[in-house]
């Protein structure tokens, strides 16, 4: 067992445990925080896979952006003053079966398939290369992504704001 393997198992454990908490925790705050660990773990996996730039992006966007957003969402939609912020689950049994089957099948497929694996290459300048890719080969997609982000930004503001305007009108 090499160090590499060890680190992998460590991260895998972190991810799985924290993801399990995310899924299973009754208190939504716990879920939110353990999601943080999941994201970190995934970032670690990325590093292991020679994707340092993506790992960094993962930390910045997921941890810095999305997670904060989610926690805001939690706080805005639950009366935070109430001590117990618990949520319930339903259709647990079928979901366990379904996700179990899906997970099992996927694992089975992944492990049984004879992947045509090449020798992993270690690239040094991933950031430069990704940058070059983004403005050459994937330029249209890149710009589209920008537009999507812009639209999402405006859209979410609109969605959140519109209701407010209408309620104001009603109040008037």
């Amino acid at each position: 067992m090499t160090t590499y393997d060890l680190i992998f198992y460590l991260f895998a454990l972190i991810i799985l445990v924290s993801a399990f908490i995310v899924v299973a925790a009754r208190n939504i705050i716990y879920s939110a925080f353990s999601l943080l660990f999941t994201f970190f773990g995934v970032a670690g996996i990325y590093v292991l896979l020679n994707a340092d730039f993506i790992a960094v992006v993962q930390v910045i966007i997921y941890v810095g952006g999305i997670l904060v957003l989610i926690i805001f969402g939690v706080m805005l939609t639950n009366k935070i003053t109430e001590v117990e912020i618990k949520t319930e689950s339903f259709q647990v049994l079928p979901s366990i079966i379904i996700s179990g089957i899906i997970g099992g099948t996927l694992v089975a497929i992944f492990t049984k398939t004879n992947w045509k694996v090449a020798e992993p290459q270690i690239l040094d300048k991933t950031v430069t290369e990704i940058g070059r890719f983004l403005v050459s080969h994937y330029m249209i997609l890149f710009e589209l992504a920008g537009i999507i982000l812009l639209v999402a930004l405006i859209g979410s503001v609109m969605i959140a704001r519109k209701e407010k305007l209408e309620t104001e009108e009603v109040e008037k």
Partner: protein
Amino acid sequence: MNENILIQLSILNIILPLFGFVLLIFFGKRLPKSHLFEISTIFVGLVSSSIVSFFKLNYFEDKLIVFDFRWIDFGNVPFFGNLGINIGIQLDNVSVIMQLTVFIVSFVVHLFSIKYMEGDPRYSRYFAYLGLFTFSMLGIVLTHNFLMMYIFWELVGLSSYLLIGFWFEKKSASDAAKKAFIVNRIGDVGFFLGILILYANYHTFTFSEIFGQIAQGNLPFNSGAWLTAAGILIFCGAIGKSAQFPLHVWLPDAMEGPTPVSALIHAATMVAAGVYLVARIFVMLTADAMLVIASIGAITAFISATIAITQTDIKRVLAYSTVSQLGYMIMSLGVGSYFFAFLHLITHAFFKAGLFLGSGSVIHAMHHEQDIRFMGGLRKKLPITYYTFLIYTLAIAGIPFTSGFLSKDGILGGTLAFAKLTGYWFFPVVGFFVAMLTAFYMFRLVILTFHGEARDIHKFEHAHESPATMLIPLISLAVLSVFIFFSPNPFNIEAGWFYKWIETPKTIVPQELAFSFMINESNTSHNIIHSELYTETLHHSHSTAMILSLIMAGLGILFAFVIYQWRLISADKLSIKLQPLYNFSYNKWYFDELYSKTAVAFTLGLSNFLAWFDQKVIDGIVNGTATITRWTSFSSGKFDNRVVDGLVNWTAYVTGFFGMVFRKFQTGKVQTYLVMVLTGIIILFFIFKSL
């Protein structure tokens, strides 16, 4: 003058009335005098068709002039090679004479209508329809193939529908129009099937090509029975259009249309199209088919003549007389006397159109009173109408020096000869009996309408002779009902030019399928149509028929005068004495009642049943499936609730799982749906895993 010009003129003749129709339909309301345009197109057609007839009959007497083009191309059909459908026109002596007849009648009817229809809110529409009719009728007359024949066949049906239902505010008119179209359709379906038999074998619609194939012994589906079937099925078209038994019921009802329309369509031209059709396919009729045709014709002639003697509506009497005369022509074709059938078609067209126009004149004068029981004595008020009417009546009764005498006499002679050779004495007996009935009811009509005292004084006072545009048609048709136009010798048609032009075509049916007196085309090279025996018999029967028919007609006229003019026998008493017969005849043999109680009631009942069946059973099954699914899910949900607590084994898991899924089939929760979707994906995956 060459053939091309004749063809071009004929095409022009067909197109002109259509042009009139289109113009009137779109601009009729905006251009107040536009009907005059339509009439002038008919007049141009009349002139040009006279030219065509003159040149065709005098310079290209024996020539068949054909013009056609490929209308539809099927391309290179596998196993058959290049196929397509040609359409076009052909000019032979029969078609040019018919063309001229159509134009003559059409023109006088147009002329007559100017005054007759004056003041109608849909005046221009009326002339538009007349134009459409003339166009379609010319199509039937000039076509050289079955498909076009069928197309125009239906188009005359359409114009007939539109014109019968012209006063559609009246329920009876729209009923009659609908009835006419549907009854005609029944016949047309048979016609269509007949065409299909021919097409399926020969892959063409053209008369000459089909007949050529049959003449070479190439029978449909290699059997004479199919040839007979084709003949009879095509004849079905004629049964519908020429109002033959058992589809004759529409024609009397069609009298709901304006009277000039009855003259043009339901007396002179359209109804005669059936006879024309049978004449066209005459060469391919087998002996069996001819026997069927003759029988239908005889039965029709008899039934309608018996009905006509008790009717009281002036137009209905004429309608039944038309049906009866058409039966004559059909019977005549059936017994192989082609020439006289065609002759009667032409002569009948003139005098029957005249009778209808004359009745139109009477109706016009009587302010739309049609019941002859309220007429009488009109001779004094309407002298010109009376005398012309009398000429037509003499013609239809078959009195010498009229055109009707020539043709009717020939038909009766034909039936006699046929009976002598084959032993079917039924036909001459019916023929002569009907001749008597015809004379009787026609004179009954004349006497009740024009002779005696006025029975409705008020209307009589206001009656007045019709204006000149209505009288000119009457007079010209009366002139055309005189023998001189057909033969210089009033007792022998064979002396005339008509006999020279219209030549009975040689049959192409194999000898063993045809009557023995018909000679097959392949048998002889020279121009003999009938066996010598037949020619001789016909010659002998001729004089017998002439004498007999005169006696019968005289008897009929005598009875009419005895009963209605001199009143030696009271008509009322007679009708009471013969009550059952009288009722039977007066109610038209109860045909309408029979049909509406059987065929119509059955169809409507079936359709209502099927609609119910569709809604309750078929749709019920669909909805039932939905209900059962819901019920199953509900009950399995119940079952699940009870059992799942107790059993913790795999079966229970699966049951519980399905129960859950089914119960929440429509919860409105996205996540439940998602569960189902994923389940589906998993199942699909495992199904296709093995592939």
